[in-house]
């Protein structure tokens, strides 16, 4: 009996070691590595530097967001990842192999391993849904019958088997994007690049497409790179995010960290603009009751988010505080949030109250 137990615990230890070894190995071999990437365009009014020394490393199986304002260079960066755009300087490594080492033919072969979807879907308008999904299969040399069978499986995954014979013009935006996803998955890619894939869709449809992408990520372990200008998309689906501004990555890290401690101005701006469709209604109703007192911004971390900190604060100090804005969100499965509080105008207890909040693991910041 005890022998058996020992054996079991030994195998658990072994298992843990094996697990650690594997995860270390995965770390060494990132799926996508971008090294000192520069891209400039020569246009009539001079040189445009779309990318300035970008460095990124994207792990296999990750969902990685790249966010930034319009013109930040996001599309250029993602197009460099499959060499649709050849960088001016620097390297792109897929599974450790540099894309610039490939011949034109090898590069085309490599592209079959990298699926891509677009804002405007880019389906063949003159071909049926089924034929659209078959397109990459024909590139791989599959015969019609085999391609059709595989395409039907893919349409099953995206929930569109009943539309196989329809033409793209007869589909809604969300359905078109599903066809595009099925098409991108047809060649069994290891990576899926999404350039503003939900930007042309309404919030409801965006949500369902993001759910589908999550599902694909977990089911097939495909690494997903998501380009967007909407923080809500990053919040919904990404684990890590890089924030781009004027051709540079200004901040990069876990989504949950960046939401709670945005460092760059761009990140703060993007988070501020992210009204978060799921909490929007709640925010609007709050009216300021106390006038002109000091305002502070408090940030909840994983441990403190659902403790009744504010209620306790009021009970302790016997003084009302006004909640100007409350915003807690589900970020990558961890509750994150912030509140803007306003103290009473001539409160003498402000410093004590701030200390009280700090003790409870909350971050305190200025409000401009």
């Amino acid at each position, binding site marked *: 009996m005890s022998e058996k137990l020992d054996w079991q615990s030994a195998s658990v230890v072994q298992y843990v070691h094996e697990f650690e070894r594997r995860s270390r190995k995965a770390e060494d071999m990132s799926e996508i590595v971008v090294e000192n990437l520069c891209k400039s365009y020569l246009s009539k009014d001079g040189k445009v530097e779309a990318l300035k020394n970008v460095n990124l490393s994207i792990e296999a199986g990750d969902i990685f967001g790249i966010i930034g304002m319009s013109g930040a260079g996001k599309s250029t960066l993602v197009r460099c990842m*499959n060499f649709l755009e050849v960088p001016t300087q620097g390297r792109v490594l897929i599974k450790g192999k540099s894309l610039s080492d490939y011949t034109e033919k090898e590069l085309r072969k490599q*592209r079959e391993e990298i699926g891509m979807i677009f804002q405007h879907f880019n389906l*063949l*308008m003159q071909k049926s849904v089924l034929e659209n999904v078959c397109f990459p299969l024909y590139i791989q040399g599959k015969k019609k019958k085999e391609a059709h069978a595989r395409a039907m499986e893919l349409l099953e995954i995206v929930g569109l088997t009943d539309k196989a014979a329809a033409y793209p013009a007869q589909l809604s935006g969300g359905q078109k994007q599903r066809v595009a996803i099925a098409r991108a998955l047809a060649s069994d890619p290891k990576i899926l690049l999404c350039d503003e894939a939900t930007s042309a869709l309404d919030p409801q449809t965006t949500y369902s497409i993001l759910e589908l992408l999550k599902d694909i990520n977990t089911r097939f372990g495909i690494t997903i790179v998501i380009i967007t200008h909407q923080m809500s998309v990053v919040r919904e689906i990404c684990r890590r995010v890089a924030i781009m501004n004027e051709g540079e990555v200004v901040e990069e890290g876990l989504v949950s960290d960046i939401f709670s401690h945005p460092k760059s101005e761009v990140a703060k701006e993007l988070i501020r603009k992210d009204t978060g469709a799921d909490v929007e209604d709640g925010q609007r109703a709050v009216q300021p009751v106390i006038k002109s007192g000091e305002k502070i911004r408090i940030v909840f971390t994983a441990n403190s988010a659902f403790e009744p900190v504010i209620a306790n604060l009021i009970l302790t100090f016997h003084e009302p505080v006004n909640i100007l804005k409350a915003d807690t969100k589900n970020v990558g499965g961890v509750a994150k949030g912030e509140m803007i509080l306003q103290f009473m105008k001539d409160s003498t207890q402000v410093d004590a109250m701030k200390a009280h909040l700090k003790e409870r693991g909350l971050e305190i910041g200025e409000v401009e």
Partner: protein
Amino acid sequence: MWSQEIIDMLIKGIGETLYMTIASTVLGYIFGLPMGVLLAVTDKDGLSPNALVYKVLDVVANIVRSIPFLILLILLIPFTRAVVGKSYGSTATIVPLVIAAIPFIARMVESSVKEVDAGVIEAARSMGASNIRIIVKVMLVEARTSLITGATIAIGTILGYSAMSGAVGGGGLGDIAVRYGYHRYQTDIMFVTVILLIILVQLFQTIGMYIASRLDKRK
């Protein structure tokens, strides 16, 4: 006026006109389609930019297009004789018709192909499609409606040119119109041939547009 002789002549004229028009259009496309695709593909924003190839084709197309057809017809007489063996009659007329049609068709093909959404081409590239595949399976397929509309216009224009060749004994309805209307002042026969030409153009136009819209899957 409606003697059997004249009716036979008109029927023969229709036959010759159709022969010249269809043969010239087909031959025109055999050369004009690749030329148009090449123009679109080698242009600056094309699939495979090549300034030299583009410039050469561009200049050739412009030169031929700027020569009035009647002049071209005369200029090409030695060439026509070398190819067909004689310089009059409907078969001989096909030669200058084709030469005039090639750059015209190429320009129309070029503009049709350039209309294809760059995003769809980018998607095909991202899937690892070769340039040849993109041309054949994406560009020509997506441009289908526009190409057929272009072909309809091309047929109409070539039919008009073929009638013009009647001035130099090219055969067909144009020839009849010139011989009877101009040389013999029999304007009634000329009138009938003109009506027949209009009907033919209408017919081609209607059929072409019908096919184009039937094959368009965008609606």
